[in-house]
């Protein structure tokens, strides 16, 4: 296989990156056009950049409230999922328990559950305990998505931690719990952190539960909030472009900082070592 990168290869790369990024570029260019210039006009650049769309985007709809809601829900979900999952994944990879295959099978099956199959009982439950339009009303169903995902990825990370350290800690008289806290956890911290990012993104992006359970505007999350910018009769593309840019910025920052970790986390569950 040719591992040298020639000029043709770089041209391909530029074209590829351009195609992937094109929707973002176009939406960004639209967001800084004056609202009147958006319709029936396919000029790439505007002569008269304006922030009017941004102003409309945050005044017509509580966009920052949506972002705050998403942030709180995703953070709570991540903390709960990581808490339960790290303990379970440690036991699954390290302790001599039986039925590991069965347990992992159940967890994998749970991560494959179609959300539509569980939404109506969850909706009934959340309504019955009075958690509609609240943060916990979303955090509880999000466990279905996040917990199996977290266990699955963490199990792979924990497996890679060298055994010898644990053995020597045991010889020195450390209890299994001490071993976990003092040896495994610090070594596993990067993996836990990576898993946290992935769970956070998964919770941030969830749509179906957020749409169904938090129906009042002030409790909507970003994905649902964005999809409600369009009304029956008009579609304010300027507002939508600006809102899209605003909600994409935090994700772009997250991806730019943690790209290596994210790739490691994404691929850990699917590749045999």
């Amino acid at each position, binding site marked *: 296989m040719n591992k040298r990168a020639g000029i043709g290869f770089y041209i391909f790369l530029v074209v590829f990156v351009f195609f992937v990024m094109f929707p*973002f570029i176009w939406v960004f260019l639209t967001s800084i056009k004056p609202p009147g210039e958006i319709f029936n006009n396919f000029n790439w650049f505007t002569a008269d950049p304006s922030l009017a769309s941004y102003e409309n985007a945050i005044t017509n709809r509580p966009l920052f409230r949506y972002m705050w809601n998403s942030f709180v829900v995703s953070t709570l979900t991540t903390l709960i999922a990581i808490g*339960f999952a790290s*303990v379970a994944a440690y036991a699954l990879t390290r302790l001599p328990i039986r039925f590991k295959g069965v347990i992992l099978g159940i967890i994998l099956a749970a991560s494959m559950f179609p959300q539509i*199959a569980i939404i109506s*009982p969850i909706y009934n439950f959340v309504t019955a305990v009075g958690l509609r339009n609240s943060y916990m009303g979303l955090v509880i169903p999000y466990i*279905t998505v996040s917990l199996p995902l977290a266990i699955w990825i963490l199990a792979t990370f924990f497996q890679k931690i060298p055994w010898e350290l644990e053995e020597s800690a045991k010889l020195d008289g450390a209890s299994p719990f001490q071993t976990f806290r003092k040896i495994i956890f610090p070594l596993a911290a990067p993996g836990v952190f990576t898993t946290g990012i992935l769970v956070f993104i998964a919770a941030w*992006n969830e749509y179906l539960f957020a749409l*169904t359970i938090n129906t009042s505007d002030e409790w909507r999350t970003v*994905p649902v909030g964005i999809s409600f910018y369009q009304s029956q009769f008009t*579609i304010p593309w300027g507002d939508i472009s600006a809102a899209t840019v605003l909600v994409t910025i935090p994700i772009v920052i997250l991806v730019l900082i943690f790209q290596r970790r994210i790739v490691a986390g994404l691929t850990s569950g699917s590749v045999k070592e």
Partner: protein
Amino acid sequence: MKFQLNEKQLGYAMVAPALILVILVTLWPVAQSFYNSLFDYRLNDPSRSERFLSSNMDLERYANDYFYLSRDLEALEGQAPDPDDAAAVAEISQEFEAYHAELLEMDGLAEQYEEVEGMIASFTAIADRDLKYASVENDWAEGFKAFLDDASEQLTTISQNTENEEFSVTAGNVAGSLDSVNTAVIESNFIGFDNYQRYLTDGRMWQSMGNTMLFTIVSVFAELVLGLMIALLINRAFVGRGIVRASVLIPWAIPTAVAAMMWGFLYDGQTGIVAHYFEQFGLIDDASVLLSTGAGGMFSVIFADVWKTTPYMALLLLAGLQTIPGSLYEAAEVDGAGKMQQFWKITLPLLKSSILVALLFRTLDAFRVFDLIFVLTGGGPANATESISIYAYITLFSQSNFGAGSVLSVIVFISVAIISTLFIKFIGSDLFAGKTGR
């Protein structure tokens, strides 16, 4: 030995909370969905908003109505100008009291009824379902309902035929009260597999199933081929890996709903640049085709999904490629194998498990597609892009029909179970490799 046992117990204790949570939030709701699907269960219809295995009586309503009705019937009898009418009313009144007496004779009903009456007298709304509803004998409920229908009809006729205006109005009112009592008697809405029969022969169900399969097969196949090509091309050292990796991750990381809104703008018949360029290049006749025709809608949805997910697929496959030792290719080179031969004989077989795992996750994801289509086309035009999840969502939450919607949910669940079983048969134990340890 003792230490070993403790370690084992600790292990179970550590797995248990997560496992119980997973089971509670997934298996229990699926079981509930299946149970719901056996009922004619509609949230927007008071007589069907609960699941009743047997006939039931809304005691709160009944006690309230009974109090007035029993008094009004007596008064009506006295008012009747014609002895025939008086006799008819007396007979209704008698029979009504007889049914009432029979009701109170049922197991524990007398006490429950008394409690409900007490709460009504003190104007307390009854929140406790077990108190509000009493299970009653099916035969009794059927007989009582038939009697109420009859009596109400009889009184209506009397009210229409009588000359006495005052008597006519009262008789009409009493007939109305009888109808009201009728709605307090709730017959069982357990219908078994009737919902399934209905939806398995429903054209819209099969159309949405067909849409879902078309979407899944085409988009996953395109993502696999394109993803594999990209992975093969970028599997080398080059300057700017970071930029490529970031640009590949961003479409994956943004919410699908946001991506769908963006593509909705790009495809728009008037302002959409993609629609505009497609028209300019002669790919479509008119810019509006993309979102206003069935084929255009399906293409748009698949294209947006391919854009969002191919980079992710490429990443998974790239990671698989990087585990193939370079020495294999060197050896093949020495043996005189061409590039194509190397691909078919080395790359593809060694990549097989990576490809299958990626395919499994992608197929399941694509099959339950909801947000992309829901936001981009809403299932339209004319249901041409409606996926099975969207049909289920509309039945559940737009029509508030939880019984029928649950049937569709269960159908999605069973399809997903079949797909995963097939895949896992192919992948085998590789899926768990490197996870269970010693």
